[in-house]
């Protein structure tokens, strides 16, 4: 299977600060991909470069064979690469209904709006109960559901989740993990950034340890790892 996304030698950063140093990785060849590693080492920056929020300084980002490096976020959303950013800040004063309508904003997603809305409601029945409520009045877990639901409304061909369980209670984490698993089984490949390694091991088949703005270690399927080994990667040998 060809990778749906391949990042080839991308360098990116903010102003004069370079965060990503010639980073390369692939997603979609072996199923879902997990990214982990210490904070402040470029995971979020990588996602921002992939989704067009940040223009990479050099390198190629191939999505389904097309180089999307430097394209606008709108064009990338239009191609079906959907990024759920960290921290579920979203649109605090819009209702859930509004967020779902916005998710279906791109011309590619518009014809699938009704069908995707049903999928979201099936996946997160709680949202239907609060359909007209403002996002700011929801709990952290519900806001994360809205974030992911909005992304599903965009009819993703590849879904990128940045720390979806950040700040959530363990029980809600488990529920969310099950929902994300459902999305994956529905045929949408995932890239997930997560600090919770258990969550990643359950959800993904291929792992990258991102350290100092580059891939430090790649873990392919079959090369299973135990928790202790990952911890030692995190904290050095």
């Amino acid at each position, binding site marked *: 299977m060809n990778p749906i996304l391949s990042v080839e030698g991308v360098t990116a950063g903010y102003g004069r600060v370079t965060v990503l140093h010639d980073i390369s990785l692939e997603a979609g060849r072996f199923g879902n991909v997990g990214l982990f590693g210490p904070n402040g080492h470029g995971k979020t920056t990588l996602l921002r470069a992939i989704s067009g*929020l940040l223009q990479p300084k050099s390198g190629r980002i191939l999505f389904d064979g097309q180089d999307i490096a430097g394209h606008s976020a*709108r064009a990338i*959303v239009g191609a079906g690469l*959907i990024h*759920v950013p960290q921290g579920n800040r*979203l*649109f605090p004063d*819009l209702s859930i209904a*509004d967020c779902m309508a916005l998710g279906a*904003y791109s011309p590619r997603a518009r014809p699938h709006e009704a069908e995707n809305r049903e999928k979201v409601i099936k996946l997160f029945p709680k949202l239907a109960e609060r359909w007209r409520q403002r996002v700011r009045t929801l709990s952290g877990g519900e806001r994360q559901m809205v974030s992911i639901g909005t992304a599903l409304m965009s009819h993703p061909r590849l879904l990128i989740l940045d720390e979806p369980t950040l700040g959530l209670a363990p029980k809600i984490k488990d529920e969310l993990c099950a929902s994300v698993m459902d999305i994956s089984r529905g045929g949408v490949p995932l890239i997930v950034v997560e600090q919770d390694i258990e969550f990643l091991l359950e959800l993904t088949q291929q792992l990258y340890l991102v350290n100092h703005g580059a891939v430090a270690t790649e873990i392919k399927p079959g090369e299973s790892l135990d928790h202790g080994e990952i911890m030692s990667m995190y904290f050095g040998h």
Partner: protein
Amino acid sequence: MSALAEILFGGLFQGSLYAMMAVGLALVWTTIGVFNFSHGVFMMLGAYIAWQLVELGLPAAVAFPIAVVVMAGVGWILQASVVRPLIGRPNIVLVVVITTLAAGSLIENGALTVWGPRSKQIPALIAGNTTIGGVGVSLHQIAIIVITPLILAALWMFLNRTRLGLALRAVAQNEDAGHLVGLNVTALYGLAFAIAASLAGLAGIFMGGYRFMSPVMGSDPLLKALIVVVFGGISSISGPIFAAYLIGFFEAACSYYFGLYWTPALLFGVLILTLMVRPEGIFASRSRGLA
């Protein structure tokens, strides 16, 4: 009885003009997060373009809508030239105050060069006068009092009932998230400016049919609109609308009881008091957003 009628009528009329101005300021602030100091010049330019078109022989019913549409283009161009290039820079709020003030000054002096300093007037929306509750009023003013709420209601419907309006409200709340659902953020910024300029231009046309026009006719309404948005809170568009009418009534009452001379001082008293007691504005919620 006639005192009350006079204050009520004056308040509604002034409030209408202020609301049209203040809504545009609030729209630009909530979506882009900048304050547009060329807003008063939009008002002047709308009136002058309408005057020019009428002068060329077009009937008012054709000239006025054309002027409003042209103003949308002017707003878009101004945004693209002196606001958009600065987005993402540090101190953008202050920098845009300076660039829009500069652009406004250039346009104002351009108007002075092109059209000259002599006062002009454009046709009233409806000619003639009538008497209500013992107060003589022009039909033009009544037309403004009736039309303004309709336009503001239409704007509200646009923002709250259409997908494009939803996109504008969304980008006002979270620009990055707007990018990530595929919104054309640059175009939405342009749209916010275009709508604001159109409304200001229309306010100018309203005013030009009632008072004499001059190239500096926009500066006083801009100042009043500033008081309105500080008083009502600039973080929504409904706040400034209510505030505009309140300030309109306040101004009308002040000029009735204390005279025109004291009115500006009293208005600024309200401004200072608001800034001291409730700096976010009396109708403001804590966050930025259009509703």
